[in-house]
């Protein structure tokens, strides 16, 4: 009765299409129905339900795990129609976690042995999709048998299934590998293509193991006319040629021949890719390939154009000329309608970037970004940023330009690269001392623009800008304006964490202003008015250029010595600008101001300072009750500071001149202390710095926390100048007291922790670059007069194609140029840059394959004994040698003499002999006997092999020679 009313798959599909009710509702109803039907004992009903369920699962995402057992039942039906439905469901839904997967082993075995080739095919398909360790192990004998099937239809699938079996159960290699290799000489193209396909996959994972098969592949490369096959063989050679130069030499000519001859674009592209990726040392081959790439580029088919660009990006790192030769196409493709092509040409363009053309390329791209859609715009910005910061900004010579470029990026409407720009602004500010004035100017422009506060994507950049402006406030042309920008009402749009940075910057600016004001006062009250004009700016700038935190002690020599070395451009520039910008809002009280220098000094007048304090108190007052602790704490710090010095600074009018001087000493002492605290320069800290500090022997990290404070206080002793360990960019407030402490106690050594301290210092020397060392690093860079094409910077209307002619061609560089500023390097940076060595993973499969291949091809005994010698030292003591094999041992290892080594080598040969034995048995089609030969022993031997491999890898350099498999004679 059930069958009558049951809907079959067609009815279900019709029902879904009609959609009388909502689709999801219809499907859940159908599944209810299926749940009922699938329990039926009637096979047709059950299988129809299962088929429907497979359909719903595949296309509508219905869960079918509940039907796993039913699928097994249907699959074991003798009727092909149902069996196929069952297999389809099992193949589609089973995975390693399916509990009933163990139940299908016997059914699979039965079907693999079936006389009906289509049943065998179903079972093979199933094994290739869901085969796990158990299935692969248990069915290896059947697969082995099928590998020599007379039916091509079966044989090709048996070959393909071997891939899964090897992957899951590497020991199957010992059984099946030989038969697989034999098929490389098959005359049947379908079989050949299947087996080459398998080797192509295997080579991708571990090419080295298959080097001994090179002659077979070579034969196919030369003889075959089948494009599909040739593509796969080329992929194999692309892997093998990089491992064995002699092989590369051998295949390069046939590949070029193929490249000239073939009509098929797919094969042609594969040849190009192989040459460009693996045979790039062969000039003539590369040239030919580049000619062919050009054909692709000029083709109308966007597919070929795209692949052509991709081929160029493969070769770009090694032969940049190939890209330069085709630069017209690359740049034209930037405006292609196809996003892929645009992206690819952007990548290529970035690969062309060098010191001399980075400015022009960036200019063109920025203009391009302005015009393009948001997605591509951000792609462009992202690639400019990542290219420019590569290897510690190695392509950037003019950092002032780069700072302005960053500022410009922020102005691009679609810019969403907040995080990267934030990071780079802070990074270059810390690393490159010379860029700071320009960067501060750029940051000021960002901060004063209220519009930018409205764009949440830019908030992180503003945070960086605020930090830079505060940290390097001494370069600011107008601190008052900066203060207003930092306190503008729209800053309430910022996230609390960013707002906290703003408040901290306010603190720094405030202290700077107060300090400058006090210095100015002191100098006024000092008798020598003649020196005034030069003295004040000097002492202010002494602080800027002075590296050491110890401002107080170094002031006197610094002001005399460093004046000369200080870049006069900065002074002139900042003062010149001050006079312009301050013209309006700064209160010029003294008529005596005539020089620009005195005007700058006079901006710190009493009124302006009072005004400043008022603004700060007004703006931060509400924030001291903020709910965010960061903001609240910082705001209170600032307010506490203003309270402390306000009265003394701000009420000079009521006091007489003499009183004034005395009263202000207290305030100026506080201000000076604070100023010193902030003048400690923050250096970049290597990301791996923390890891590299080992815990000292006697130190228990969880005890004696009280003692830690004294230790920490001393860490900062300025022995290595500009780097501070513990001050993070945002957390200086915490350091103030510590630094104060330090400046007092500087001269006395702390007695309690001398030994620990010594160790710390030692480590400081080791892990944090001292200033001398960083200068040493700068020697790696091009010398000071390294050229830089300044003249081009001004050329704003660079047209795309003009660019191609001018900037990309090698040209004479003008002599006049600014020296590249020092970029601080850290140990950790280099680590992150250095290419990671490919890790050798303990691949079981490759181990077995090598074993089998070497066994087959006969290794020269010298290399084998070499191997065992390496092993012997480490595997001693674990020996459980079965002596009955010793005879065989001696035969197998003729070169072996030293008694120490006999053990290991005999064990090795034991394993090999096992492998052989098994192979022979396998050839005898004796599947049953193999089973009883013992899984245990098999596993054990495999286990040992694994261990051996691990040892070998441990002393890898020694083994290089031994590990290289035999290269067949034909190569030599």
């Amino acid at each position, binding site marked *: *009765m059930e*069958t*009558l009313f049951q809907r079959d*798959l067609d009815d279900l*599909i019709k029902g879904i*299409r009609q959609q009388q009710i909502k689709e999801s509702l219809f499907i859940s109803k159908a599944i209810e129905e299926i749940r009922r039907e699938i329990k039926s004992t009637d096979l*047709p009903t059950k299988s129809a339900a299962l*088929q429907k369920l497979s*359909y719903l*699962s*595949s*296309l*509508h*995402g*219905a869960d*079918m795990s509940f039907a796993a057992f039913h699928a097994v039942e249907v699959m074991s039906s003798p*009727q*092909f*129609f*149902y069996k*196929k*439905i069952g297999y*389809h469901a099992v193949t589609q839904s*089973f*995975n390693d976690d399916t509990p009933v997967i163990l139940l299908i082993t016997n059914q699979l075995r039965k079907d693999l042995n079936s006389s*009906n080739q*289509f049943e065998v095919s179903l079972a*093979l*398909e199933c094994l290739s*999709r869901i085969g796990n360790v158990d299935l692969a192990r248990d069915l290896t004998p059947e697969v082995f048998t099928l590998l020599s099937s007379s039916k091509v*239809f079966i044989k*090709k699938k048996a070959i*393909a*299934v071997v*891939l899964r079996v090897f992957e899951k159960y590497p020991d199957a290699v010992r059984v099946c590998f030989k038969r697989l290799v034999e098929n490389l000489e098959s005359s049947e193209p*379908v079989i050949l*293509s*299947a087996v080459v*396909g*398998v080797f*192509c*996959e295997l080579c*991708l994972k571990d090419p080295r193991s298959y080097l001994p098969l090179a002659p077979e592949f070579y034969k196919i490369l030369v003889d075959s006319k089948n494009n*599909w096959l040739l*593509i796969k063989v080329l*992929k194999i050679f692309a892997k093998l040629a990089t491992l064995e130069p002699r092989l590369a030499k051998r295949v390069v000519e046939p590949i070029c021949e193929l490249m000239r001859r073939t009509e098929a*674009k*797919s094969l042609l*592209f*594969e040849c190009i890719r192989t040459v460009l990726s693996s045979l790039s040392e062969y000039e003539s081959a590369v040239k030919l390939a580049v000619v062919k790439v050009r054909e692709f580029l000029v083709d109308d088919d*966007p*597919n070929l*154009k*795209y*692949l052509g660009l991709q081929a160029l990006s493969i070769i770009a790192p090694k032969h940049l000329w190939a890209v330069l030769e085709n630069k017209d196409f690359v740049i034209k493709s930037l405006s292609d*309608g*196809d*996003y*892929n*092509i645009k992206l690819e040409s952007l990548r290529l363009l970035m690969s062309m970037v060098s010191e001399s053309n980075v400015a022009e390329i960036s200019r063109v791209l920025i203009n391009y970004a302005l015009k393009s859609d948001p997605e591509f715009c951000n792609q462009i910005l992202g690639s400019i940023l990542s290219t420019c910061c590569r290897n510690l900004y190695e392509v950037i010579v003019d950092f002032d330009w780069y700072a302005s470029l960053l500022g410009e990026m922020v102005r691009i409407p679609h810019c969403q690269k907040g995080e990267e720009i934030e990071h780079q602004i802070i990074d270059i500010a810390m690393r490159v001392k010379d860029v700071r004035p320009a960067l501060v100017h750029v940051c000021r422009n960002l901060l004063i623009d209220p519009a930018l506060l409205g764009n949440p994507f830019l908030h992180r950049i503003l945070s960086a800008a605020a930090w830079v402006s505060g940290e390097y406030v001494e370069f600011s042309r107008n601190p008052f304006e900066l203060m207003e920008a930092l306190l503008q009402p729209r800053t309430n749009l910022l996230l609390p964490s960013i707002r906290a940075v703003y408040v901290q910057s306010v603190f720094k600016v405030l202290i700077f202003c107060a300090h400058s004001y006090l210095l100015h006062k002191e100098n006024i009250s000092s008798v020598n008015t003649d020196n005034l004009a030069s003295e004040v700016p000097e002492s202010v700038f002494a602080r800027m250029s002075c590296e050491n935190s110890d401002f107080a002690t170094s002031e006197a020599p610094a002001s005399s010595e460093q004046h000369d070395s200080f870049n006069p451009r900065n002074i002139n520039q900042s003062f010149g600008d001050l006079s312009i910008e301050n013209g309006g809002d700064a209160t010029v009280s003294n008529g005596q101001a005539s020089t620009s220098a005195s005007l700058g000094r006079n901006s710190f007048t009493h009124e302006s300072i009072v005004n400043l304090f008022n603004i700060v108190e007004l703006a931060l007052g509400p924030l001291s009750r903020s709910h965010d602790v960061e903001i609240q704490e910082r705001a209170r710090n600032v307010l506490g500071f203003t309270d402390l010095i306000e009265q003394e600074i701000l009420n000079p009018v009521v006091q007489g001149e003499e009183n004034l001087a005395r009263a202000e000493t207290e305030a100026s002492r506080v201000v000076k202390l604070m100023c010193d605290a902030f003048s400690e320069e923050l250096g970049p800290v290597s990301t791996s710095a923390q890891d590299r500090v080992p815990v000292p022997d006697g130190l228990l990290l969880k005890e004696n926390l009280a003692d830690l404070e004294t230790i920490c206080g001393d860490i900062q002793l300025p022995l290595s100048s500009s780097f501070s360990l513990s001050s993070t960019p945002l957390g200086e407030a915490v350091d103030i007291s510590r630094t104060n402490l330090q400046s007092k106690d500087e001269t006395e050594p702390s007695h309690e922790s001398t030994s620990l301290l010594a160790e710390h210092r030692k480590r400081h020397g080791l892990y944090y670059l001292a200033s001398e060392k960083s200068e040493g690093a700068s020697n790696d860079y091009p010398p000071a007069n390294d050229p830089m094409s300044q003249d081009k910077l001004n050329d704003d209307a660079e047209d795309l194609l003009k660019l191609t002619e001018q900037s990309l061609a090698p040209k004479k560089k003008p002599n006049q140029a600014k020296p590249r500023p020092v970029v601080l390097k850290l140990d950790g940076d280099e680590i992150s840059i250095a290419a990671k060595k490919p890790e050798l993973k303990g691949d079981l499969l490759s181990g077995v394959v090598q074993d089998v291949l070497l066994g087959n091809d006969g290794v020269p005994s010298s290399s084998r004994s070499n191997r065992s010698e390496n092993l012997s030292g480490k595997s001693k003591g674990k020996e459980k040698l079965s002596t009955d094999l010793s005879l065989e041992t001696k035969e197998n290892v003729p070169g072996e003499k030293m008694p120490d080594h006999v053990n290991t080598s005999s064990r090795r040969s034991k394993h090999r002999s096992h492998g052989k034995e098994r192979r022979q048995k396998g050839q005898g089609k004796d599947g049953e006997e193999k089973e009883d030969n013992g899984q245990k022993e098999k596993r054990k031997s495999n286990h040992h092999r694994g261990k051996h491999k691990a040892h070998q890898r441990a002393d890898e350099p020694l083994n290089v020679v031994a590990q290289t498999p035999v290269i067949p004679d034909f190569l030599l």
Partner: protein
Amino acid sequence: MIKSVMVMNTQGKPRLAKFYDFQPVEKQQELIRSVFGVLCGRADNVSNFVEADSIFGPGTRLVYKHFATLYFVFIFDSSENELAMLDLIQVFVETLDKCFKNVCELDIVYNYSKLHTILDEIIFGGQVLETSSIEVIKAVEEISKLESASNAIALVSKSVSGWRSR
């Protein structure tokens, strides 16, 4: 290795989805949706390749072809050639065309299991085993014959029981 084959219409409704690495059904649906999200934004005259790293992990590529109301999508890794995959889509579609005589979307909707049979003859566990549509059709026809022969008994019994109960 081919990772996945999808056929979907221009509204994003999947018509066939095959994953050669096991994926949970939810993940399958998500992948289908994200592939459609990429494809529907692409114009007709652009290249047939899409970088699929963000969807299927690093190193995977996607080739698709647009026929009438359907997208045919193959996803594969670096051991396949892009242009060869494009040809393979052509082989697949040609085979369908021969099997169904001017294939249209409806044929594909209603012949779900035959579609799988055809595809399984071309791609076996992610590896391409047959590129000749003639060979594929030969095998598929034999399989269909075998299916209907084994099903005949069941069909008869079903219709007889249906007859009786009327």
